[in-house]
C-alpha cells in the first residue's frame, strides 16, 4: 500500500532532491558561517571575538525565538501576518518598566543587575499582555474574520495597531531610550576562552529556553495544545470535531502575546528600552518565521537562532548596521533551495 515506491531516479532528479533536502540546508548554513569566519580572518578579527559574537548571536536568537513563536502561532491558527507583534514586544517591555517603577526598589540579586521587581514584573506583565492581545484581537481582527476580509485588510489593521501601540509608548514614556535600572553597573564575566558575557544574558537565555520548553510541552502534551495544532492543520475539520475555536484563539494570543511580552522585557534588559525596539525586531522575526516555515513553531525556533547568529556574526567583517540585511540574504539563500522553509514538507 506504500505510495513511495518510486522508480529509479534520473541523476538530475537525484541532485535536485539532494539540494532541497534539509540536511543540505544545514550544510549550506555551515558553509555560510565558514565564509563569515574566513571573511573575519581576512579583516584580522581574533577567534575569540568571533566566538563572542557567536555566543551573542545565540543569546539574541533566544529572545528572537520568543517573538517568532508568537508570530508563527498566530499565523498558523488565524492565517494572518501580525505586523503588530514587534510593537507588542515593545509595549510589554514598557509595561514591565511601569511595574518596576511602581514597586519599591530592592537590592540587585547578585550576580544579576536586576532585583526581585524585574521577576515580579515578568510574572505580572506576561499574562496581562497575553490577555490584552486577545482583547485587541476580539476588538480588531474578529470583526474582520466575521466579514471574511481580505488578507491585506488584516495586514493593514495589524500595522495600524503597531503604530497605535508605539504611539502609546511615545505618549507615556517619551522618545528617549532608557534602562530598567538607570545607572546600575552591569559587569561582564568571562564564560570560557575569553568569551565575556553579563550574568543577565545567561539568565535571559536560560529563561528563553525554559519558556520554549514550556510551549513545546503545551503543544505536544496538553489537550488545548493539540487542539491548537489541529486548528492550524485544518480549521474546518476542527470545528466539525467539536473543538471550540474561540478557546483555541484565546490560548493562541495568551501564548503568543505573553511570549512577546517576555521577549520584549528580556531584550530590553539586555540592551535598552527604546520605543522603536520592537519595530526593528519585526523584520528579523518574520525572517526567522519564514526561514523555519510559516506556521511551524519548531521551525520558528530554529529560524530565530539562525537569524540571531548570522546577524551578530556578520558584524565581524561588515558594519553592524547591515546585520539585518545579511540575515535577510541568508533567508533568501535558504529559500532559493528550499522554498517551503526548513520545516516545510517538500512537494
Amino acid at each position, binding site marked *: 500500500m506504500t505510495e513511495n515506491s518510486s522508480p529509479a531516479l534520473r541523476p538530475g532528479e537525484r541532485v535536485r532532491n539532494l539540494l532541497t533536502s534539509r540536511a543540505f540546508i544545514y550544510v549550506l548554513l555551515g558553509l555560510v558561517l565558514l565564509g563569515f569566519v574566513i571573511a573575519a580572518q581576512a579583516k584580522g578579527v581574533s577567534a575569540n571575538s568571533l566566538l563572542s559574537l557567536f555566543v551573542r548571536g545565540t543569546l539574541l536568537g533566544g529572545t528572537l525565538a520568543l517573538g517568532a513563536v508568537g508570530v508563527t502561532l498566530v499565523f498558523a491558527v488565524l492565517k494572518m501576518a501580525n505586523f503588530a507583534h514587534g510593537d507588542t514586544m515593545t509595549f510589554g517591555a514598557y509595561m514591565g518598566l511601569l511595574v518596576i517603577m511602581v514597586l519599591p526598589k530592592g537590592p540587585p540579586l547578585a550576580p544579576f543587575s536586576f532585583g526581585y521587581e524585574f521577576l515580579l514584573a515578568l510574572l505580572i506583565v506576561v499574562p496581562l499582555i497575553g490577555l490584552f492581545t486577545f482583547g485587541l484581537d476580539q476588538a480588531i481582527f474578529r470583526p474582520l474574520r466575521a466579514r471574511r476580509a481580505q488578507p491585506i485588510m488584516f495586514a493593514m489593521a495589524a500595522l495600524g495597531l503597531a503604530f497605535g501601540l508605539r504611539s502609546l509608548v511615545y505618549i507615556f514614556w517619551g522618545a528617549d531610550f532608557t534602562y530598567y535600572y538607570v545607572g546600575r553597573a552591569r559587569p561582564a564575566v568571562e564564560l570560557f576562552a575569553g568569551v565575556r558575557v553579563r550574568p543577565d544574558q545567561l539568565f535571559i537565555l536560560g529563561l528563553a529556553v525554559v519558556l520554549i520548553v514550556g510551549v513545546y510541552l503545551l503543544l505536544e502534551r496538553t489537550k488545548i495544545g493539540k487542539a491548537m495544532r489541529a486548528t492550524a492543520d485544518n480549521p474546518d475539520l476542527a470545528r466539525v*470535531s467539536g473543538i471550540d475555536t474561540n478557546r483555541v484563539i484565546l490560548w493562541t494570543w495568551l501564548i503568543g502575546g505573553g511570549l512577546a511580552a517576555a521577549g520584549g522585557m528580556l531584550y530590553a534588559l539586555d540592551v535598552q528600552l527604546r520605543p522603536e525596539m520592537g519595530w526593528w525586531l519585526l523584520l528579523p522575526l518574520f525572517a526567522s518565521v519564514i526561514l523555519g516555515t510559516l506556521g511551524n513553531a519548531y521551525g520558528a525556533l530554529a529560524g530565530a537562532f539562525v537569524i540571531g547568529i548570522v546577524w551578530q556574526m556578520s558584524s565581524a567583517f561588515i558594519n553592524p548596521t547591515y546585520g539585518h540585511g545579511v540575515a535577510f540574504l541568508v533567508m533568501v539563500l535558504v529559500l532559493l533551495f528550499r522554498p517551503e522553509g526548513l520545516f516545510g514538507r517538500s512537494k
Partner: protein
Amino acid sequence: MPLLTVENVVSGYGEMQVLRGVNLTVGHNEIVSIVGPNGAGKSTVMKLVFGLLKPWEGAVTFDGRNISGMAPEKLVKLGLSYVPQVENVFPNLTVEENLDMGGYTLSGSLDQQKERVYELFPRLAERRRQRAGKMSGGERQMVAMGRALMLDPKLLMLDEPSAGLAPLLVDMIFEKVVEVNKAGVAVLMVEQNAKKSLALADRGYVLATGQNQVDGPGEKLLGDPEVARLYLGG
C-alpha cells in the same frame, strides 16, 4: 419516528441555489445512501445537515429536535458525526492525536473509545504514532472514520468514503461501514459508487438537480431500469 428528517429543504451558497426541496429520513440503525450525478447537491445535503450551511426554507430534525442551522460544535454533542469528502484528517497530527481530537468534547480518558476504534481498524493500532498526512489514502480514510466514531455517535455521515480509493480498499471501507452499522450506528452516506453503496444500503435516494427524484430500498433502486438508465450509467 425517524432519527433524522430533512423536510422540504431549500438552500445554497451565497446567491446560488443548489437544493430545491430535498426530503429524506434516516431511521435508527439504518444505512441510507444518497446517489446521483455530479452537481446534484449530494455533498451540499451533508453540509446542510451538519450546520455548515443554513437552510433557506425547510427544516432538519434530529432525534426529535429541530437542528436547522445549528453549529457543528453543538451537533457533535447531540450524537451527529461527519466525515468530509476531502481533507478529513489532521495531517500533521499522529493517528492517535487525530482520534483524541475526535473525542475533544469529552472530559477524562479516551482510552476506551480509542481501543474500540483500534479494534475496528487494527491497522491504525499499528500506526498510532504515525502522522496522518504520511499515510496512504485508504489508511487516511480509516483515520477519518475513526475520528468521527470517537464520540459514539447515533448517526455517522460519510461524504464519498470510497472516493479515490483502489477497488480492494473500497470493499474494505464498505465492509467497515456495515460493521459500524451493526454496532448500532445509523449511517447516512453520499456515494458516487452508486451500485456498491446501494447494494449495502437499507434505503437509497437518487438526487438530481437539487431534488430527490426516486427513493426506495437499495436493492429495488438497483433493479429499477429507469434509475439505472438515468443515474447509474446503464
